[in-house]
């Protein structure tokens, strides 16, 4: 154990911050969909996995990375649309447990399909960006880029949600569904747009993750539980809550991991989560329980 306020501690804090950008982006997509449609996409991390394979495929066929990235974002946005239209829409009026089960079913279908199509080996794009070294600290450029792009994407989404008609309708529908027809808003359109944005955010996360992580069919299991924990900690449906929870959890992981061992970082984060949920079951910023 070496938990002193030295430069390695600072490095851990900053690396936690860099991780938080990615986790906040992931939580944002899930929260957006839940806030608007009131359905949890259990298979959210698997959509990211689909995006990663899509980007890998495009890149390996010779497309430049930016083109492959764009392809990945569009692919997952389209997957979000399909998920809503084919899987969620038929169960919109059903009990919440059924909605969880169908999206949970999609999780296994996607994992199995990826295993069949691509095998269980780890794949990588083979892009090495190196790291930024300041004093004795080292930060992977891929993480810095991830943080910058995730922050920019969240800013753009925020502007969209606070300025555009569709964006305001998306926020309004999360607050009062029944009266939307009085505003001339067709909720089906809003649901589709939201699903596409939710998918697009998962696609963007995939773009950032292929720079840092290997691709394999179960990668969703590495991130899925973490994303849900962040969303629930912040208050499901609360985008601000998810944002703050992402930073808290990342710092627990990074600092805990640096002081003790990586596994400890996750254990401490989950312990913190459990304590908060005992005290505030609705999450830090949750309105509805």
């Amino acid at each position, binding site marked *: 154990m070496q938990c002193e306020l030295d430069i390695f501690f600072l490095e851990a804090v900053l690396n936690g911050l860099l991780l938080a950008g990615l986790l906040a982006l992931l939580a944002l997509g899930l929260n957006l969909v839940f806030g608007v449609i009131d359905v949890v996409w259990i298979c959210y991390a698997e959509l990211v996995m689909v995006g990663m394979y899509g980007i890998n495929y495009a890149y390996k066929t010779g497309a430049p990375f930016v083109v492959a990235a764009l392809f990945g974002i569009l692919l997952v946005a389209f997957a979000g649309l399909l998920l809503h239209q084919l899987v969620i829409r038929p169960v919109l009026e059903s009990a919440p447990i059924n909605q969880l089960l169908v999206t949970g079913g999609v999780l296994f279908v996607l994992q199995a399909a990826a295993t069949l199509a691509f095998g269980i080996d780890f794949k990588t794009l083979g892009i090495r960006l190196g790291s930024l070294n300041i004093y004795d600290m080292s930060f992977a450029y891929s993480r810095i880029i991830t943080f910058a792009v995730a922050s920019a994407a969240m800013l753009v989404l925020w502007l969209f949600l606070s300025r555009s008609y569709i964006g305001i309708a998306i926020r309004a529908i999360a607050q009062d569904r029944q009266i*939307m027809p009085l*505003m*001339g808003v067709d909720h089906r359109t809003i649901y589709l747009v939201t699903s596409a944005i939710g998918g697009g955010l998962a696609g963007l996360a995939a773009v950032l993750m292929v720079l840092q992580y290997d691709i394999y069919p179960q990668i969703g299991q590495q991130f899925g539980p973490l994303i849900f924990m962040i969303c629930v900690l912040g208050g499901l449906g609360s985008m601000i809550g998810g944002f703050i929870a992402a930073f808290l959890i990342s710092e627990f992981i990074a600092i805990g991991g640096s002081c003790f061992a990586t596994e400890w970082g996750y254990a401490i984060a989950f312990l913190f989560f459990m304590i908060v949920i005992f005290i505030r079951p609705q999450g830090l910023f949750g309105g509805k329980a």
Partner: protein
Amino acid sequence: MLELANVDAGYGGFQALFGISMSVKPGEAVAVIGANGAGKTTLLRIISGLLPMSSGAMTMNGVPLREIPPHKVIATGIAHVPEGRRLFPRLSVENNLKIGAYIPSARAKFSERLAFIYELFPRLKERRSQLAGTLSGGEQQMCAIGRALMSGPKLLLFDEPSMGLAPVIVAQVFELVRRIRSEGYTVLIVEQNVRQVLKFADRGYLLEAGRIKTSGTAAEMLASDDIREAYMGL
């Protein structure tokens, strides 16, 4: 302008309205009065498309409302100020107004109408960036009316605008509705506050247990002994 012929409606197996026939002419202020549960709110929900009718016909300026989906009703010129105001509490006042201008024909006139509403209700302009949920009851009613006006309606439906407000605010709200009226809008208003509403309406319908019991000019209704006894406690 608005015509209803033999409209029936209900929720599931429960029938709430029976053979309603009524009309609203351009420039009129029409009041629908009746006790709790008489079907007043259901009537407005039918007109604005929130609830489908089970039989009958309804037209707005000749457009058959039964054949268009609920979210297209507003484009025929009907705006509904719902019971309990139903603002979006975590959106700013200005964004509440903006969502009122969601339909394509209204978007083009957003700035012009926003300026008109801020002129009509300067209080809303002062509070434009405040969350709607933090407004007082009277201000919320202004915002709800403003939101309805943003779509550029010809006919405004008011559902119990005085409900849940302190007596001094109730008087202000009726003043607001009167001002809307004087701006040339046609008004269909549902109220339990019979005396107040008949003071400014041109005509009235009395709804009892889902049926129109009587109708007439506001003066006739105010003078009717039945109405005075049953609804005004005189």
